[in-house]
């Protein structure tokens, strides 16, 4: 599929906050209550449209455990957007945001757009972190903020797409140097790549199993 731009995203945050589930909801529109844990990094891709332009998102979904931080750090390079995720039902995942942010700021390019996400908003009864706290943290650190639910899909599209809009605006404003791939942005190939069929195969494999 031909695209105007390709943005690289990275999803970060503590283990078990729902990073992979957010990705799955965004790319496959489904929720898997019991999910394999992520070791190292996993990938997702989806095409979106902004301002009439086709934009391909290439998403790196990282492992959340503290031990893997040194590995994750090497994946910030060349990311245009980051989704920093915490779990609204686990206060400690919110408390760790500062260290995540430090890591992200230190190892990425300075223009990387960071979206703060309070996930699991469907579990209102178990909430430990107020929405206002998330908003305050975002305001203080200059992040975009959203509460999402990978389970109900609430705000999931928005989280990914709003991040892309912000990046797109920065490109329009000339903040991003799109010719430098270290910024996580690539201009689409002139020719339509022949990967559509491959994507189809991959997707079919996962979506298969139904009949009649």
């Amino acid at each position, binding site marked *: 599929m031909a695209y105007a731009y390709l943005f690289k995203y990275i999803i970060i945050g503590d*283990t*078990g906050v729902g990073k992979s589930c957010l990705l799955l909801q965004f790319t496959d529109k489904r929720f898997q209550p*019991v*999910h*394999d*844990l*992520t*070791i*190292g*990094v*996993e*990938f*997702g*891709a989806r095409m979106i449209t902004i301002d009439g332009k086709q934009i391909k998102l*290439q998403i790196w979904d990282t*492992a959340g*455990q*503290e*031990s*893997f931080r*040194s*590995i994750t750090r*090497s994946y910030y390079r060349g990311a245009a957007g980051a989704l920093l995720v915490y779990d609204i039902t686990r*206060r*400690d995942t919110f*408390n*760790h945001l500062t260290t995540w942010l430090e890591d992200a700021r230190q190892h990425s390019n300075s223009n990387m757009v960071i979206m703060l996400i309070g996930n699991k908003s469907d579990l209102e009864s178990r909430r430990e972190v107020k929405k206002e706290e998330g908003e305050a943290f975002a305001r203080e650190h200059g992040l975009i903020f959203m509460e999402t639910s990978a389970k109900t899909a609430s705000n999931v599209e928005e989280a990914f797409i709003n991040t892309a809009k912000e990046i797109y605006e920065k490109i329009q404003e000339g903040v991003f140097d799109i010719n430098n791939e270290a910024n996580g942005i690539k201009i689409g190939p002139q020719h339509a*790549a*022949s*990967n559509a069929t*491959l*994507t189809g195969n*991959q997707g079919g*494999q996962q979506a*298969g*199993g*139904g*009949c*009649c």
Partner: protein
Amino acid sequence: MCLIKFVIQFSPKELNIFGSILPTRCHIFHVIIVSDDNSAHVHFKNTFAANFTKHKEGTSVRFLKITTALNPRFKNLKCLPKSDRDEVWSMLSGVLKEQHLIAEITEPEPPKKKINLLVVASDSDDENEYASVSCALDCYRAEPVIGMDACFLEWWLKHEGTNESLAHLTHKYLVTPVTTVMFSFFFFFSPPPPPPLPPSRNFFTKRTKELKPGLHSAPGWKLFGKVPPRENFQKDSKIIQQEYEARTGRTCKPAPQATRRKTFEFEPLSTTALILEDRPSNLPAKSIEEALRHRQEYDEMVAEAKKREIKEAHKRKRIMKERFKQEENIASAMVIWINEILPNWEGMRTTRRVRELWWQGLPPSVRGKVWSLAIGNELNITHELYEIFLSRAKERWKSFSETNSENDIEDAGVSVADREASLELIKLDISRTFPSFYIFQKGGPYHDLLHSVLGAYTCYRPDVGYVQGMSFIAAVLILNLEEADAFIAFANLLNKPCQLAFFRVDHSMMLKYFAAFEVFFEENLPKLFLHFKSYSLTPDIYLIDWIFTLYSKSLPLDLACRVWDVFCRDGEEFLFRTGLGILRLYEDILLQMDFIHIAQFLTKLPEDITSEKLFSCIAAIQMQNSNKKWAQVTAPVRPLVPSRGKLVLTLPWSPSPRHR
């Protein structure tokens, strides 16, 4: 409404197929209000009724009747007068018996010995066969009718185990002719497909034997007229069976063949049979040429379907044969391992014969034992030591839950060397370990066991702590060894240089391993190597997952166990060789892909990967660089490794051209 138009305009005009009536009708229920006040429904009803009456006498009625009876949605045969229903069942019984006869002629019984291995209870006594036919039929009739939304193919897949002979028949009747059938497009309007079954990976596949009663609260079904509520839809199938048994006075056990293992897959194509019919009377008749042409096309289609069926049968037979052979090999290998090798372990482990046998895969019954021996116990861990660390872990868990995890443990002033704090993380990961097997889920039989082994390890090695990925390794060991032995193997396995480097997430050491891997990558698969390079696709992207979990997360479990077998024989080198084997296996596909597709592909390998193909690819990978072996290439890594595992090095890797 669009659909109704399709049904009415297309069905009678183009192809007049009885078999389409029931499913079509079923769909109609989803889109129109069934009421005589509704003109759309009346029109539909009249058109179909006329059509139906006209063709009632045709020869295809027999086929239709059987198809209807075999469809668990319609098997109450409400579309037929009560008096006609028994006739259908006896017809079906006849077909079943016929099938048995054919099966006996075409599929010779395997020799007695193999039967024992497979625990097949197969009496070829004719009377028994016939009794089993009627039993199978009775069992099927006792099952509740399923709802209109339910998928009957799915239903048959689930019931294949309990009622194999009928399920086989279904294959023929419900799924026969395929996409060539014009009306297959009707079924694109079907209700959403049911969720896919949990992936079956040979181990612990959960099989739902019965459909949840009352799940589909669909009304009963009658071809034309009012819709009565389904009489027995709340009844549990067990209750029905009990009632049935009480009534008939005999126990209905599953047909004897039910235990025979067999692959049984439906092609989710069309749902009905193909029958050639004339045009309905309200339309101009076909010209002779047209009729002839249709007849010819029809014959071709039937011949095609038949050809496909024969091909399928051959394929099934071949698979069966291979499986018999495999089982026999495993059985004979087991005898050798138990009687010859294990008693003389030290003397024989490095002999060529043992190494070759080892490559073929360890028989599951000796697998745990051989792994234990090969991994060794240079840490001298005893069962008592395990108990000590386990109780320590339990204490810590208790104190965690008392202080409540509110305050942050990781920041609670614990030194970096003390990674006992990672104890808390374990419980998050247990249920995310092999989630498709269910056994590690909360309440599952192995949940607590896995928790214990990982907890004890974290207390035993606070310098390493619990690191994600470990749960997969511990799980595989638990599946093959007793609890304490699994712990001993686990701790010793993780003490090997490569595992230690990875689980300590020693980044510089990991990079050295990746660099060594790339040396052999370039040597073995130069084209793919360049392709990856052109996308700056580095090996960490896929190797981290593969090495951390020793392939148990990325490969089907039975295949992962085979990799572990040879890993125990050859050491760390084999892990990287396996990685290259996977790349080689998929080289052609990977060469066509760009960065994101390669990354996605390698972090989620296809599930249909087979051990023969993979192992022949691994065998073709030479771990001998033009001038260096793996051990030499990775030599810079070694002196840095703090606690150097002896075993990897005492398992000499002898480069022989016949490395199998």
